C-alpha cells in the first residue's frame, strides 16, 4: 500500500521539476542576474567548479519568488480550496514579486499552469502528493550537490538558447 504512495510522490515530483525548470528557463533566469545578490551566488558557484549560468539560476530563485514558489504555493492553495485557490495564489505571488523588484511573468504563469495540471490529473494523483513532489524537486537542485546541478542547468539553458 505504501509502495503506491511513494510512486505517486515520485511521479508528481518529475512533473513539478519539468514545469518549473522549463518556465524559468524560458523567461530568462539564467541569462543575467536580476538583482545584485544573485551575482554573488553565481560567482561563488563558479568558484567551486560549476557553471555560471546555472549559478545565476540558483541565485535568482533565492532572491525572488519565481516559478518554483508559484508551483509550491498554488499546489498548497489548490489542496486547501480547489481551483479558486490557485488564482488567489497567483495574485499574491505577483505582489511578492513586485516587492522584490522583479517583473513577475514567471511566477504567475507557473502558478496558473500547475493549477491546470492538478485539475486535469485530479482523479489519479491528488493535490497532496504534489506538495511533497515539489519539495523533493527543489531538494535535488538547491540542497543535494551544487556543482553537478549547476552543470545540468547550464546544459538545459544552452539548449534553449538562453545564455551563451
Amino acid at each position, binding site marked *: 500500500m*505504501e509502495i503506491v*504512495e*511513494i510512486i505517486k*510522490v515520485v511521479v508528481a515530483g518529475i512533473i513539478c521539476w519539468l514545469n518549473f525548470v522549463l518556465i524559468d528557463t524560458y523567461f530568462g533566469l539564467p541569462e543575467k542576474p536580476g*538583482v*545584485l*545578490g*544573485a*551575482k*554573488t*551566488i553565481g560567482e*561563488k558557484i563558479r568558484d567551486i567548479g560549476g557553471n555560471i549560468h546555472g549559478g545565476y539560476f*540558483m*541565485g535568482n*530563485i*533565492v*532572491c*525572488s*519568488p519565481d516559478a*518554483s*514558489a508559484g508551483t*509550491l*504555493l498554488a499546489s*498548497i*492553495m489548490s*489542496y*486547501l*480550496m480547489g481551483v479558486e*485557490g490557485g488564482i488567489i*495564489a497567483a495574485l*499574491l*505571488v505577483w*505582489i*511578492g514579486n513586485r*516587492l*522584490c523588484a522583479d517583473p513577475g511573468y514567471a511566477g504567475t504563469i507557473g502558478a496558473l499552469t500547475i493549477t491546470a495540471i492538478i485539475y486535469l490529473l485530479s482523479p489519479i494523483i491528488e493535490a*497532496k*502528493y504534489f*506538495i*511533497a513532489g*515539489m*519539495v*523533493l524537486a*527543489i*531538494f535535488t537542485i*538547491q*540542497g543535494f550537490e*551544487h556543482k553537478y546541478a549547476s552543470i545540468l542547468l547550464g546544459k538545459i539553458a544552452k539548449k534553449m538558447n538562453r545564455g551563451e
Partner: protein
Amino acid sequence: MDIVEIIIGVIALLMAIRIFLTRSRARKLLYLCCLSFCISALIALYVDSPMGGIVAITYFVCSTLSSNAIAYTIEQAKDIE
C-alpha cells in the same frame, strides 16, 4: 503519521544540519531557501484550513525578502573590506 509528512520532515532535518555545518556564506543561503520551502509545506499540511494557506504564503514571501537583503549585504561588505 502520514508518509507525505515523513518525507518532508526528513528533508527539513537534513537541511537544518547542513546549514549548521557548512562554512561558506553564500552556500548557507541556498540551504536556507530549501528549508523555507519545507516549513511552508508543513504549515499548510498541519493547519488544514484556508487561513493556514494565507499564513504559508505570507511566511514564504517575507522569508524571501529577508534573504534578498542578506545577499545584497554580502556583496556590499565584500567591496568595503
